[in-house]
């Protein structure tokens, strides 16, 4: 027992898995107890069974479509932000002139919450797909650029200097050292921002949409159908954790050389 309480020491993978699963099981148990023993009103906390039944019913009635459309919005906004943000962040992280020009501006925008832009995006982009994608983009872009810049700047100077003493020219240092050294951090930033993208798509859909998981939750709310709301919320959680695990698996595949498992 003692050996599992050492600070920051690794534990067997099996134990890790068991502990992770038991946390979910415990939550489910508490939920069920809250309903049966605690007598919480089902209109506030529907029993797990009712939620499961609602999930099955919704699965054949639009849930898949809503997942699809939300997924599309998230992915598009995310890829757009990454396509511009990753190169820009790397540029800012490796060239001081680029940092001086962009960093204060982006830091300024970062403090304006994406949700505050929603009315404006509706005027600019109407309420079509572009508007939802726009909210996702605004929500993650500025943070993403600044985080990528940070990752790039944190590449150890000694590695860069080593390359110079081995005869590399600036562009070679960039391609052969800076990029590979920054790549794991870049992938991790993408993983984190993808999670945020899910938050912003739901915000956008709660306000102005007639499809998507946010709309499903909003609509269920209007009809006071708590089980449906639960299904919507839980689905987002499940999708989030799937994305996260996929990213982690990809990183393990891409970076077998990392000291620490990602």
């Amino acid at each position, binding site marked *: 027992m003692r050996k599992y309480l050492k600070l920051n020491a690794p534990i067997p993978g099996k134990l890790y898995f068991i502990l992770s699963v038991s946390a979910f099981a415990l939550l489910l148990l508490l939920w069920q107890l809250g309903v049966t023993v605690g007598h919480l009103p089902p209109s506030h906390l529907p029993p797990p069974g009712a939620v499961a039944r609602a999930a099955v019913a919704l699965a054949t009635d639009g849930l898949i479509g809503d997942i699809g459309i939300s997924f599309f919005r998230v992915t598009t906004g995310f890829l757009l932000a990454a396509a511009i943000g990753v190169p820009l962040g790397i540029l800012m992280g490796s060239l001081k002139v680029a940092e001086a020009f962009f960093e204060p501006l982006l830091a300024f925008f970062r403090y304006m919450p994406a949700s505050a832009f929603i009315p404006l995006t509706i005027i600019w982009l109407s309420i079509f797909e572009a508007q939802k994608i726009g909210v996702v983009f605004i929500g993650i872009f500025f943070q993403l650029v600044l985080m990528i810049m940070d990752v790039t700047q944190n590449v*150890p100077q*000694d*590695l860069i*200097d*080593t*390359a*110079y*003493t*081995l*005869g*590399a020219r600036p562009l*070679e240092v960039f391609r*052969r*050292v800076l990029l*590979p*050294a920054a*790549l794991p951090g870049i992938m991790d930033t993408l993983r984190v921002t993808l999670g945020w993208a899910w938050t912003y798509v739901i915000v956008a859909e709660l306000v102005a949409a007639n499809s998507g998981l946010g709309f499903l939750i909003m609509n269920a709310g209007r009809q006071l159908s708590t089980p449906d709301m639960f299904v919507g919320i839980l689905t987002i959680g499940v999708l989030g954790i799937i994305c996260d695990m996929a990213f982690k698996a990809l990183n393990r595949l891409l*970076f*077998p*050389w*990392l*000291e620490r498992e990602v």
Partner: protein
Amino acid sequence: MALAAEPGISGNKLAVVNLTREFNFKHRKITAIQGISLEVKEGEFVTILGPSGCGKSTLLRIIAGLTEASSGQVYKDGRLIQGPGRDRGMVFQSYTLFPWLTVRQNIEFGLNLKRVEADRRHEIVNHYLDIIGLTAFADAFPKSLSGGMKQRVAIARALANDPDILLMDEPFGALDAQTRLVMQELLLKIWEETRKTILFVTHDVEEAIFLGDTVYIMTARPGRLKARIPVPLSRPRSFEIKNSRVFLELKTSILEQIREESLKAATMMPAGCD
């Protein structure tokens, strides 16, 4: 203005002329090194001994072309040095293997930049893998190497690139005493074979004497050269020499000379009292 005709600049592998470097630190000027001049002959093994913070790394970085001098010049083969280049290889104080490359790929990094063809590249890498005794680890990533193994690869990587001068900044500083001894002997063995010109920085007196033809002693910050001491020990050397009378006498005399410097360094404020 130092002219190339000045004695010492031509005829020597390396000539450092009146080198000074200042840093700005919290709105104050710190002089890291001041007025350092030294000459290194082709094939000479020079060790530089100095207390922590006396500017040893700064000196090597300027010679490598990674840091600019505030004043003074460095000449290699009579030509002014103006930036980093593959003619001056460097082994750093910290571990600097590229973690995403295997041991083999690390060693051939410079050869790839030079576009050396595959056959020749393999030959060179295998040669150095053999010398450092890590052939079995050729395809391992640096994460699975010990500190001593990492520095061995770093040395092989620098040597495979065939530099004129090898700059070594406390490469064994982070290693335990036994590994350090093994590494010193290995380095001497490699040097006997290649006869590279080496500038080796350390704060370990025994290491400086054991390795060097010439030992330079630096003062505490601002770092100046305090003494130049030729080492009259015959080559090739093995570790037994550390118990010889000549070695021990040299050690005592050098220890006396650096004792006051170390005391100064230890009582100095971090922002410097220059």
